[in-house]
């Protein structure tokens, strides 16, 4: 990375150019960089161990789809944890929303407007999102206005929503689901094809370049220090290559003589990641959430309505659970009350692997999505090399604690560096 960019624009003064200098100049988040390195190691390791099965378009495509449900929910879990709360109910809530939405499609809407009516999927998705906002918002209300700790409230939610989904489904599997709705889960038809994928990729690249240029111009305008130009260009080139590379891989997977391209769940995950990153970093609401996590009293004294903010964080989490429920039920073309069992643990693990601190105040949305990808890579890699479920759990557990330990170490070190 450093070499290629150096050739384009040699640094003035030349001489020794260390990796540390390069990283500092690019101002890239070290934690994200570390996870990308870890991901590369995991991928290469499993590729070799599985005899060349891991880094194939097919496996990577499936991996991306499997990551999407946990990834979507992990973005919300970041804000929940950052605000010094926890949500243990997301797996059960996913089942409740999934089952309710399935019953709505199959038993209610089909009777009223007819089976496979083109409006069914819209109504179903809208219903799921509203239901998620209400369930999550209710839990948030109990947490912030009544003052019951979120651990207890959502532990209750874990039991209640699971029980409720049993009640709604009467213990049965609800299937099949609406035809268009099913496309949201991916599969061979639920992908956007090669042409559209390339368009998405190019739009994303243009977006990345515009963001970089805009940021640089803004900092110039105020006379703040900016990255060296070579670092800026290098960053843009790397980001765009990564995007286009991913599109190329997705487009080269053609199981039935048709290039699938990016699947709908992955597209949803990308959209959610962009929106949630925007909410977390560019809105007053997001800033308030981080401030509450850093010092609740200071946030209160600064005039932030901390109770409403916490309520909204849980409502947002509920909406993202609903998105997860839609993807999951659409992918299975069915809903059962056992859906999402223990999923809360994967979602929390993804957020923690992605650098979210359970002490509150620290965490990033892209980090959590990467965390979900690391988690899913481990699981699917172990399936490929034939490791069974107990071994998978063992490894995931170790990686989780290891990631948290690295994070603690990293934070202590950076604080010391700045203080001296």
């Amino acid at each position, binding site marked *: 990375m450093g070499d290629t960019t150096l050739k384009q624009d040699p640094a003035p003064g030349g001489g020794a150019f260390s990796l540390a200098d390069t990283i500092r100049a690019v101002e890239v988040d070290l934690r994200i960089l570390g996870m990308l390195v870890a991901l590369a190691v995991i991928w290469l390791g499993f590729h070799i161990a599985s005899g060349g099965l891991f880094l194939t378009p097919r496996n990577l495509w499936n991996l991306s789809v499997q990551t999407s449900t946990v990834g979507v929910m992990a973005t919300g879990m970041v804000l929940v944890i950052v605000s010094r709360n926890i949500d243990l109910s997301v797996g059960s809530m996913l089942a409740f929303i999934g089952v309710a939405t399935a019953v709505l499609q199959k038993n209610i809407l089909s009777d009223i407007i007819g089976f496979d009516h083109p409006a069914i999927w819209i109504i179903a998705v809208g219903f799921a999102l509203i239901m998620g906002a209400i369930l999550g918002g209710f839990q948030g209300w109990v947490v912030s206005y009544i003052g019951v700790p979120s651990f207890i409230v959502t532990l209750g939610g874990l039991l209640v929503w699971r029980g409720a989904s049993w009640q709604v489904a009467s213990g049965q599997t609800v299937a099949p689901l609406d035809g268009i709705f099913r496309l949201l889960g991916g599969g061979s038809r639920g992908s956007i094809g090669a042409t559209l994928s390339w368009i998405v990729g190019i739009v994303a690249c243009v977006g990345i370049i515009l963001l970089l240029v805009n940021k640089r111009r803004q900092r110039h*305008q105020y006379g703040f220090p900016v990255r060296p130009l070579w670092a800026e260009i290098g960053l843009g080139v790397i980001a765009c290559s990564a995007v286009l590379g991913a599109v190329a891989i997705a487009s080269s997977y053609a199981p039935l003589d048709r290039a699938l391209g990016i699947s709908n769940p992955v597209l949803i995950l990308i959209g959610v990641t962009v929106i949630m990153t925007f909410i977390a970093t560019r*809105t007053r609401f997001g800033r308030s959430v*981080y*401030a509450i996590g*850093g010092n609740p009293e200071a946030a*209160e*004294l600064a*005039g932030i309505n901390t109770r409403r903010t916490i309520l909204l964080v849980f409502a947002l989490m509920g909406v993202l659970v609903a998105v997860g429920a839609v993807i999951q039920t659409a992918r299975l073309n069915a809903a059962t009350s056992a859906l999402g069992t223990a999923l809360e643990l994967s979602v929390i693990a993804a957020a923690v692997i992605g650098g979210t601190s359970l002490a509150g105040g620290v965490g990033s949305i892209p980090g959590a999505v990467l965390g979900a990808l690391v988690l899913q890579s481990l699981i699917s890699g172990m399936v490929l090399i034939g490791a069974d479920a107990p071994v998978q759990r063992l490894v995931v557990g170790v990686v989780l604690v290891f990631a948290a330990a690295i994070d603690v170490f990293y934070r202590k070190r950076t604080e010391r560096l700045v203080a001296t």
Partner: protein
Amino acid sequence: MTDASQDGTPLVELRDVRVSFGGVHAVDGVTIDLYPGEVVALVGGNGAGKTTLVRTLSGAHPADSGEILIEGKPADIRTPRDAKDLGVETIYQTLALAENIDAPSNMFLGRELTTRWRTLDDSAMESEARTIMGRLNPRFQNFKIAVASLSGGQRQSVAIAKAVYFNARILIMDEPVAALGPAETAQVNELVLQLKAEGIGIFLISHDIHDVFDLADRISVMLHGRLVGTVNKDDVTMDEVLAMIIMGKLPTEVTDVELEELHG
């Protein structure tokens, strides 16, 4: 403080303010006032109720009873937001900073500058922060790192900048120089005089009797939640103020023997 300005309406009046925590009277019927361009020092030992008293004015903890008048009009201050809307800014003893976010974000917390798209304008906030820090603490350069990584003095600068930036009419400074070195303390003291010259009224809580005599126009002394009295700085000696703090006796009540014993 000239007598002329004290004839007008006070900027702030706290009348018969009471606050209790579970039966303990932290503030027990205290009445104090503050005029524009005046520094009133609030002094007293630990637990005298100084901080609790000013917190009622900051909106951090509403009074159980009593009245707050701002420019003669009754003010209903229940939340920090209410206080800020009335032009009351506070530098808390605890600094009240979110340690995980950077200095500009802390300064503008709850009052962020936004772009025309209603998104956070971090560049504008950083620019404003650089400007005000240039005045308060020119050596401060760490605008992009979490406040947790700053030194005590730098953190205090951030807390002061946060209060001063928003053009307060009334400023409450609760131990503003507690974590500062001599040079930075001198800077803050200069700032106090500058703000005072701009017509801002300042309640200053301080443990340092020398700072109090350097900066204050009047001194209100509290003991066990009650107001011992308010005196003009020019009319009293430091020993007399110490007698008020320790024995709760006004300069008119205290004997020379007792004053001697203070140094015992």
